[in-house]
């Protein structure tokens, strides 16, 4: 069996919030191993809700998910909280959109990385620092003591985003959920981060659910695109190499999809 063709994640969920019904209505998504799926949609269309419901963190926003979330052959909605916890960070990683506030402001970066490692791994501190150093260099960050001792307020936004990504891929998860990871970044950093995602995908074989409203970036790295409008998937298309290079017209068409209803 070729890993490329087995399904990693397939979901079919509806989500209600306490103060808003039908945020997601029977949304179906399928993600293969090693694939990058772009999820695009306007703000408020329910993209982040999908991310949180896969990680089963929806209750943080007072939401309830119903349906089926099949991940590596298990329905996540049936798992206990303890089982779920061992899955988070180990098999599914998450990168949020505002890197500076997504890192703990009072702990040093090194400490947060070590924490992320220790939650799911045994072993001495030597191994731990090795893995961290390795991961940091793979996201093109320095891994000297001085950098690790810094806090989030002492690094740049781009660096913070790389730290977040490093933290998410520390355990080589099979799925990485990136919720608008580039929206807070400048164009140059954006490109760098996108390159990084592609590299991680190719080198480590990590499947990525790439959530964004920025069609250009989605078009740049994704294998397929799903379009979410008002809680429903309205379009699912593959992105071919050809499209990727001369994509303008097509993307325009997609934009139409997003804006019309």
């Amino acid at each position, binding site marked *: 069996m070729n890993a490329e063709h087995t399904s990693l994640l397939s979901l079919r969920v509806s989500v209600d919030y306490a*103060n808003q019904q039908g945020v997601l209505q029977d949304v179906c998504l399928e993600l293969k191993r090693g694939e990058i799926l772009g999820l695009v949609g306007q703000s408020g269309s329910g993209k982040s809700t999908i991310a949180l419901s896969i990680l089963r963190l929806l*209750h943080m926003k007072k939401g309830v998910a119903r349906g089926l979330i099949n991940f590596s052959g298990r329905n996540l909605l049936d798992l206990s909280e303890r089982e779920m916890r061992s899955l988070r960070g180990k098999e599914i990683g998450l990168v949020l959109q505002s890197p500076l506030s997504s890192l703990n402001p009072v702990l040093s970066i090194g400490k947060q990385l070590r924490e992320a490692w220790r939650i799911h791994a045994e072993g001495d501190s030597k191994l731990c620092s090795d893995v961290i150093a390795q991961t940091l260099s793979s996201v093109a960050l320095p891994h000297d003591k001085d950098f690790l001792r810094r806090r989030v307020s002492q690094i740049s936004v781009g660096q913070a985003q790389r730290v977040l990504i490093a933290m998410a891929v520390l355990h080589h998860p099979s799925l990485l959920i990136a919720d608008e990871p580039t929206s807070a970044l400048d164009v140059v950093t954006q490109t760098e981060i996108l390159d990084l995602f592609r590299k991680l995908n190719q080198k480590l074989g990590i499947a990525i659910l790439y959530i964004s409203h920025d069609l250009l970036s989605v078009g740049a790295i994704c294998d397929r695109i799903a379009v979410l409008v008002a809680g429903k998937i309205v379009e699912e298309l593959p992105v071919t190499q050809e499209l990727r290079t001369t994509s303008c017209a097509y993307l325009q068409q997609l934009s139409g999809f997003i804006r019309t209803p």
Partner: protein
Amino acid sequence: MKVARAIAVAVLLVVSLCALFAGKLSSPDYAFQYREVPDAAPSSAHLLGTDDLGRDRLSRTLYGTRISLSLAPIAALISISLASLIGGLAGFLGGWPERITMAVTDLFLCLPWLFLLLIARSLLPLNAAPLTSVLITFLTLGLLGWAAAARVICTEAREFRTSDILLQARATGQHGWRLLTMQFVPRLRPVLFAQFLISIPVFILSEANLGILGMGVAEPLPSWGSSLRELESFSSFSGEWWKLVPFTLLVLVVVSFQVLLSREEISL
């Protein structure tokens, strides 16, 4: 949770309707002393019995509800507004305005305000109408109650000032009023809400305590506070449940506020 909220709405609605139609539901004269039956147990004539002077407890409770329940939240709002204005501004501006405001707040928390209230009473004419003095009382309470909350809000605002939520919001072009309403106020809401819930019963009780300075609700006007003062010699309560009705009502109302206002789900 939905059920709880529905119950809360129902409680508040019933209580305010009862207060509104106090005259229809009970004897309209809350001040009349039925001197043949002082301190009586509930009967068909007096559904909640009578107080120590023979006044109908039910009508006193209902009219008292009208006064306390309309004025205490207003006083709470005044103190919240002051606290968020002073604390928020100080924390937001930072630097010396913050330091001075905080020094003033510290000072405010330890000054003997009792004497200010005494001075205020001596300036008020002795024949001031009961309602006027109630209004003044609650107003004073609202004006004096901000300091503690202002401290918490200031700390909050200081964190907000230095956070990059602000930076990011600024970066996306929000500024001024919009920044205030979109970012700052929602962030402060939990603290303000806490302050509101704490203040209501505290103000209702303080009004009763101010009564002993001559600044509370003057006789014969009823208020929850003066009914609650009866609890102070509670050893007489063995089995006299009807004396606990105002207390129970107050607890019910504040808990209902709590259920209604707490929108945030808490969990980890």
